[in-house]
Every structure is written in C-alpha cells, then in structure tokens.
C-alpha cells in the first residue's frame, strides 16, 4: 500500500501496539536541556530505575545560560542550579553532556544537526516544542513534556497515537528578499495558531527542495506555531551531503548502508493525506507579525487587518487596526534562536549590513546558535563585518527568545526578532515582539524602523 514518509518512519519504530490504545514508539535520539529534564531524573531515581539507553541521550544547557562571560560562574542562582543539576544528572547517568565550556555547546536544536547526531529516518524527541526542527532531515521529531522525558529515559520509548497527516506543498522560486522564515510565517498566517493541531506536516514541492538544509530547519522549526506536532521534509542529496562527515555521522561502510536505507524515505505517489494545502512561492512576500501569536502575520507593507477578537492582543502590542508596521521605529533587534541562528543566517545578515551602520536608537544582538556557528562567524570574517555595523555579537544560547536568562527586551519596547514566538511577555515582561526574517531584522537595525528588505539599499 502506498505510504507517506511519516508512516514509513513511524511503522519502523513501533515496538508494540496496545489494543484500542497507543503505539509504543521506539525513540532513536533523545535530546535534553536543563529546564525540562530535572524532574524527569528525579522521577526515575525515585522509582529506582536506570537510564535505559544513555548512549542515545545528548544533553546541553541552553535556555538559562548567559550569552556573555560564559567562562565565569552563572550569576543567577536559580539558573546556575538548573545548569549544575543537568551536569550532575548527566554524570550520574553516563550521558554525553555538551556543557557550557564544551566545544560542541549550543542550542539543542542547532547542535543535533551540525554534529550529525540527527540523521534521516530517525525518531527524535526533546522536552522542547521546537524539536520539530530536526524534521528537516526526514525525521519524526517532536516536543514532549517532562513526564514523557522520564518515559524515554526509562525505556527509550513513548506511548503515542498516530497523528493525522497534512501535506503543505509550495512550488516555485522565492522572490528577492524572501527567506524560508517568510515562507513559514506566511503558512502559519494562513492556518492560524491552532490550524495544524492534531497533524504532522510534510513540506513538499520545489520551493522546499531548493532550500538549503539550514533554511529547511527554519521551516520545520516553526511547525509547532500552527499547532502541528512536527513537520518533516523528505531527505535528498542535499541532506546526505549535509550529514556526511559530521562528528557523530556514520562513516565508511556503515554510511553506505545507511544511505541505501535513506533512499526509501519519501512519500509514495499514491499516498493519501488527511489534508493537502498548496501555495505558490511567488505570492509570498517578506512577513512580519503584529500580534501575540505567530498566526498573526502580514506582509511587511500591509496594514494591520480588522479581524474581530484581536483587540486585546493589539492593545498589548500598542498597535491599531489599519495601521502599518512599515516605517514604525523600533529600538531592539534580536537575531538568534533555534529558528534563525545558523551560519547561513549570519552570512545573509553580514552580506546585507556590510558597509552600513546600525541606527543610533537600535540595540542589535547577534546570538550564534552554537560554538561551531560562532567559530564559523570568526573563520569567515563575519565578526568584523557585523561588529563594524554596530551589532553586538554574543555567545551561544537561547538568549532573548524566551527571557529565562539575562537577555531581555525592556517593558513596552518593540523588538524585531528572528525567533519563533511573539507571545505576551515572551522576550521579557511587557515586551513587544515582531517576528521576522534575519534579512528584515538586519535592514530594520540599519534603518532604525521596520523596513521592507525589497527596497533596502
């Protein structure tokens, strides 16, 4: 029978099926970070059980960590406690831990792929909703809660119901100034913040095929923002090229064998989805959000729509229906997060800002997703370009995406942010987030006001 890519991967991982109940799904890779894992370790310890497959678990602290002076002890006592607890838990249970000083440290969803831990056809979980990122490699990757982290530590399995399947097909070439971030913001604006709930998405079509692996990760990363459990893209030659030669990737004969298996990872022609959506790349412009969920997105040059029920959200944002965001002054720009902190993002930003200076009202943070990305920034001479333009380059971490560390947007201030969520208070109490692509963010930093990158000179 014709199968979707999702079904092929799922079916290969079913250990057991409960009659009238869930499947027991085997998990290949389990990423953990400091915020959603401590209670899970306490849980298994209370039950007196060991971590079942410590070699399949990889840990890194990212949410709480400062992005300056990482060689020093973490100042915030509670943050330090969580980071230290992760360290102790990994030591006690023999788990590979990319600690703050480790050369492989970074945001969990950045380091998995760049180290080759993430490979096509895998099932991947993490106590973090942006685990969907890894779907870019043709994986079933999704976020879980802490009780589920405990389950995976205890058994390397989860009890799961198969979600419904949706295919989103986008065809054609992207317009100038339009990035993968705009594509996913556009899709989410069409579906709304809950439009994908209950579904797992496959992204298909030439637009995604033409994207780099980094760009595909940005798309899959935000699948959760329309409520979908995850999103995946069938692996192709680009995927194999990316995976090859990475630190944890298979090598030699093992790699050849794996590649044979990976060639089966595609949706059969006659496979049926519960929902199919189709878009044209040519109709996608640079996007920005104006409200307090990621579904509230518009083309950068459009006025804020007059939708019912958005009043409270607009009041929070200090915006009015019919107003334009274009040309609106902002004081903060954040380029980072698991959505847009890969080397390709910083290359694009450096290319755009080269020879320019940020506006005097702007505080602009550049936060690399990992130590490896930071090293690439240095090796490629981007630090100088970005620094000359007045951008502050910090050390890897989740930073101002979620205000769990010192990097926060002050009360009432607008921030054009390449992160994934514009929820109330997400970047700091009463902060106002406008989600956008790295290009839009960079151009905004130069002009000191929200800018249409298509007309940036």
């Amino acid at each position, binding site marked *: 029978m014709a199968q979707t890519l999702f079904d092929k991967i799922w079916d290969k991982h079913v250990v057991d099926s409960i009659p009238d109940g*869930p499947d027991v799904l085997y998990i290949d890779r389990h990423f953990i970070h400091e915020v959603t894992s401590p209670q899970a370790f306490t849980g298994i310890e209370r039950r007196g059980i060991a971590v079942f497959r410590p070699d399949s678990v990889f840990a890194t602290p990212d949410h709480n960590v400062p992005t300056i002076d990482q060689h020093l002890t973490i100042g915030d006592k509670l943050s330090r406690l969580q980071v230290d607890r992760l360290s102790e838990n990994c030591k006690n249970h023999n788990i590979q831990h990319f600690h703050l000083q480790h050369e492989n440290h970074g945001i969990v969803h950045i380091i998995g792929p760049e180290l080759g831990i993430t490979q096509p056809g895998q099932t991947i979980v993490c106590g973090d*909703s942006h685990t969907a990122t890894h779907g870019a490699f043709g994986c079933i990757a999704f976020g*879980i809660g802490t009780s589920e982290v405990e389950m995976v530590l205890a058994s390397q399995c989860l009890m799961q119901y198969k979600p419904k399947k949706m295919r989103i097909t986008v065809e054609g070439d992207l317009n100038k100034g339009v990035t993968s971030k705009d594509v996913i913001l556009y899709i989410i604006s069409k579906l709304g913040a809950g439009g994908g709930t209950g579904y797992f998405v496959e992204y298909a079509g030439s637009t995604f095929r033409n994207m780099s692996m980094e760009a595909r990760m940005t798309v899959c990363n935000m699948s959760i923002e329309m409520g979908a459990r995850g999103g995946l893209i069938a692996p192709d030659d680009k995927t194999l090229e990316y995976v090859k030669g990475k630190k944890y990737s298979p090598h030699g004969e093992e790699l050849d064998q794996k590649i044979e298996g990976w060639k089966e990872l595609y949706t059969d022609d006659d496979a049926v989805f519960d929902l199919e959506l189709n878009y044209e790349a040519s109709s996608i412009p640079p996007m920005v959000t104006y409200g307090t969920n990621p579904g509230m997105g518009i083309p950068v040059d459009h006025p804020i729509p007059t939708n019912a029920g958005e009043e*409270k959200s607009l009041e929070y944002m200090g915006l009015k229906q019919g107003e334009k965001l274009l040309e609106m002054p902002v004081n903060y720009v954040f380029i980072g997060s698991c959505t847009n902190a890969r080397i390709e993002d910083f290359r694009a930003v450096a290319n755009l800002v080269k020879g320019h200076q940020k506006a005097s009202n702007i505080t602009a943070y550049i936060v690399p997703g990992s130590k490896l990305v930071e090293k690439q920034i240095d090796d490629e001479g981007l630090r100088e370009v970005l620094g000359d333009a007045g951008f502050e380059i910090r050390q890897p971490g989740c930073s101002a995406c979620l205000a*769990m560390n010192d990097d926060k947007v002050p009360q009432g201030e607008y921030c054009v942010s390449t992160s994934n969520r514009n929820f109330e208070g997400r970047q700091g*109490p009463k902060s106002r987030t406008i989600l956008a692509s790295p290009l839009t963010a960079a151009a905004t930093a130069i002009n000191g006001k929200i800018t249409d990158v298509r007309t940036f000179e």
Partner: protein
Amino acid sequence: MEKFTSIVSRAVPLREENVDTDQIIPARFLKATDREGFGDNLFRDWRYNDQNEPKAGFVLNNQDYSGTIFLAGKNFGSGSSREHAAWALYDYGFKVVVSSFFADIFKNNALNNGLLPVQVSDDFLASLQEKVESDPSEKIVVDLETQVIRLESTGEEESFEINPYKKKCLQNGYDDIDYLVSILDKVEEFEKK
C-alpha cells in the same frame, strides 16, 4: 498519579482564546528543579501587577469564583511544551480543564498528571461560561466513567471523548512508565532487529 473518577464542583471561567503556556506559567518561573509550587505563579503576569499586587480584573483574583474546574477558551495550552503549565494548574487546585480545543502537547501533559482535559463543543463551552459567569455558585459535574460533563442545575450535558487507554490510566492512577518498564524485554528484542 492520583486516581480520577468524578467531580462535582464550582468552576473558574477564563474566556480567552489561544492561551499559550507562556501565559499559564512564564518562562522565568521555570527554574525550579521539582514539580511543586508552580500554582503560586499560575497566570503570573495576568494575575499580578508590577508591584506583585493582585489585578482586580483577573478571574483568579475574583472571590466570587472558586472550585476545581477551569473553564478555558478555545485552543488552550498552545506553544511551549513546558509541563510546568499542567503542574501549575494542578498545583493551584484544578482537577479538570474544559475547552473546545486543546493544543496536543498540553493535552498529553495534563493527562500524564491526573489533570483531566475535557473537550466540548464551542456552543456547550459558551453555555458553561455564561451560566458560571451569571451565577458563580453554579456547579458542574464531570464523570469520567460515563464521559459526561453536566450543568448540575439544568441537567444540560454533553459527552466527551477520551481514549480508552488513558481513561483506564486515570481511573487507576497508573502512568505510562509503569507499563513501559514492564515491557523492556520487548524493547530489547526490537533493538536487535
């Protein structure tokens, strides 16, 4: 996990759609390493002002409302996977959350903590909200065995879905880990394939 059978209680209504888990429990309160105490910061930024004084307009600060049933708006619990959101609601004292639509991860997290997510139609949710808002002493009955939610005064009711496996877990206070650990030999066999 505590067993769940049925509940008769007053309810606390919050007519807000798309309530994300960042609102239920803001990230800066996720720094604890145990599961207790999150109820104090449930809806922190909606509940307290900058001086940490309760905001009069917010429903948790309204003395008229009480009970162990939380009446939420549509698409409740979206965004971050933080189980702390379910812990905060439970720790505050809620045993049931009613909505016409739940985000996936939140729903799983709630079920894994003995907090019953009850999904009803938009119309029935609106009706529950109206009744409770006009008379906060109105009681709601939630019965897991028959999968029915009912307004005690009028008898108006609707049935709700829950999968048989999760229902059994809640009724008996079992969790998935007990089961998973019991089949580790099967997992080992699977790994050899």
